[in-house]
């Protein structure tokens, strides 16, 4: 029987259509159909100026807009050879890591929802709300920030931001244990996720899976550590990898668990960055005229979903001649068929949820 999951379905995380061949409850083949959220990001980018591309990157990965911005501005600054001021670097890292926490909280909460647990979702959204409040306090926007600009950021941090942020971290870090008690160590949750949807390391690498999904398979790969961009080489943090704690290495539980551990690592980075946050002007290194020299560049950064790469080709005019975004969620989705055939319908949705895809980024 052919079952159409989506485009309107409670757990496709957006407008994704999965064409699922089933034999009773068992799934034999999955064909994802994309494009329901295609907004021509790359074509649009060719027709606007370089700084006008940034709001479009917000709308690609709308759950981690800061990280989307970050990737683009890092690539642009390398292309134009701009040295960004220290304060801007620190602010960017703080914002990106806060956004990583927010994005992971949503991913974990929604994953609970996919498995059928409603309450953890709301607990996580409650805490995510405080991060969004901080963003709103800083730059006025709650979801699509357009915060990181080429050579700087749009607004300096408010005066008491450090205090608010430390207060949040002091409140937030003990909360992680509450999530674990409520959801992670629940017997039913472990039964549903452990041993399900195993992505072995070699398959993950051959499909180009990255980010927490790859680390869930036990591969220690994080762009922040292995190819440090911005000032990530100054901070002390660990890269959590899957260990197959309750089942096989690379199962849904591992991917979930890696995200949970990454949250506390991000909090650790934010604490360090807030501690050494230098003073200064955030606008001083911003170029007056953005007209990069002829040439092209590819830079990748670690977004909450994995290696987010930007390829930017410049022909010397104020607008790019080509912008290509490498979407980590797209590659993660590509291995869905390989991983989930032979499992049940409920498992397919559990696996899909554990890949943490964002359709805005897949379709662009």
């Amino acid at each position, binding site marked *: 029987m052919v079952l159409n999951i989506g485009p309107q379905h409670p757990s496709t995380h957006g407008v994704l259509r999965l064409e699922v061949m089933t034999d009773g409850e068992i799934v034999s083949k999955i064909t994802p159909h994309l494009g329901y959220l295609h907004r021509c990001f790359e074509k649009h980018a060719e027709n606007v100026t370089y700084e006008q591309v940034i709001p479009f990157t917000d709308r690609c990965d709308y759950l981690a807009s800061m990280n989307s911005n970050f990737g683009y501005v890092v690539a642009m600054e390398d292309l134009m050879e701009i040295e960004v001021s220290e304060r801007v670097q620190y602010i960017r890292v703080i914002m990106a890591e806060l956004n990583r926490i927010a994005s992971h909280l949503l991913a974990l909460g929604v994953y609970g*929802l996919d498995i059928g*647990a409603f*309450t953890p979702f709301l607990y996580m959204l409650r805490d995510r709300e405080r991060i969004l409040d901080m963003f709103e306090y800083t730059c006025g926007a709650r979801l699509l920030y357009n915060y990181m600009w080429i050579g700087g950021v749009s607004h300096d941090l408010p005066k008491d931001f450090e205090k608010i942020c430390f207060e949040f971290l002091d409140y937030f870090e003990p909360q992680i244990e509450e999530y674990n008690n409520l959801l992670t160590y*629940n017997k*039913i949750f472990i039964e549903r996720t452990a041993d399900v949807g195993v992505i072995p390391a070699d398959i993950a690498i051959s499909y180009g899976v990255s980010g927490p999904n790859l680390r869930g398979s036990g591969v220690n790969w994080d762009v922040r550590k292995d190819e440090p961009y911005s000032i990530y080489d100054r901070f002390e943090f660990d890269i959590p990898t899957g260990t197959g704690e309750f089942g096989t290495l690379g199962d849904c539980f591992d991917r979930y668990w890696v995200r949970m551990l990454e949250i506390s690592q991000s909090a650790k980075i934010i604490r360090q960055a807030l501690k050494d946050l230098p003073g200064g002007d955030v606008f001083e290194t911003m170029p007056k005229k953005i007209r990069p020299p002829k040439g092209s560049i590819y830079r990748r950064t670690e977004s909450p979903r994995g290696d987010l790469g930007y390829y930017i080709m410049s022909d010397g005019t104020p607008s790019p001649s080509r912008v290509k975004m490498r979407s980590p969620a797209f590659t993660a989705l590509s291995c869905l068929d390989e991983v989930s055939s032979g499992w049940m319908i*409920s498992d397919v949705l559990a696996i899909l949820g554990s890949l943490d895809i964002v359709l805005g980024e897949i379709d662009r």
Partner: protein
Amino acid sequence: MTVDFLIDLFSKFIDVPVVAFLLAVTIAGIPLFVLMALNATVAVYVERKVSAFMMDRIGPMGQGPGLHAGKWGVLQTIADALKLLIKEDTVPASADKLLFKMAPFIIFIGAFLGIAALPFSSVIQVVDFNVGVFYIIAVASVGVIGIVMAGWASNNKWSLYGAMRSAAQIISYEIPAGLSIIVPIMMAGTMNLQSLIEFQTGSVWGILPNWIIFNNPFSFLAFFIFFISAVAETNRTPFDIPEAESELVAGWMTEYSGFRWAVFFLSEYANMFVVSGLAATAFLGGWQSPIPGLFNSPLWGLFWFLGKIIFLIFVMMWFRWTFPRLRVDQLMHVCWKVFIPIAMLNIFGVGIWKLIIG
């Protein structure tokens, strides 16, 4: 105050037995119907508030009177019910119209018949069967016919999946439920609900009430098996796979809207009421007071019985807002490989216990 009493009463005034019977049944049925509607109204409101407080939300507000412009939203369910009543009643073009329209009634009847046998107090019971336990177990499984009907007639794949899962689940979980309710029957030696409750008079060790759950370790275990199976039979989380929102959209209810859907909802809460009532009767002393020898008048009995039911329904809500959902094969695993063997052993255990200790 049973229906037999009413039949006798009316027979004195009306010569035609059929008319007297119909009149008595109708009069006895109306309070049941009101109870069912009231139960659903209150339970939906309570569920919304309970879930809200568990999730750190505030829940429905703004409807009805309250401290500050309807702070408690007590009329929320009434507003929802009115909305459902005036909604368009859609029937899919490709549906099997007759079965589609019949299914809600069958599910409703299954839930309704169960309430008729519940002993609300030593004097308030609509029908006092001599096989009350058996009757409730039997009518509680009528609902599954309606579910399969609804799922098949909708001509929708999600509905079909939901219906098939539901049929497998309810039929499987009836076995451990039935096996574990044999324990109180063996101990009391009766299937009559009133005699079952009377058996539980008095106290054990002077402190605990002499309820069957406290009688011996096997009956203690049997209560939990029965209650968990009952949760599974009413399709509540963590066993809500037939209507699993994140998998099957709405399962067998996908194509229903308006009042037909409201009837399903009503029946779900009525089913919860019936299984909680049966659990309270068979294991928790029915209308017996939890303090042995005190507060045992019939009116107090009504209070205790409803109190126990409300407590059990609250526990079901607590489950729902805490646990994730099981997978369909894990569900079967729990039923056939865990509950049924334990329930079987329980029967032997309680038999031996009865032989040796009394």
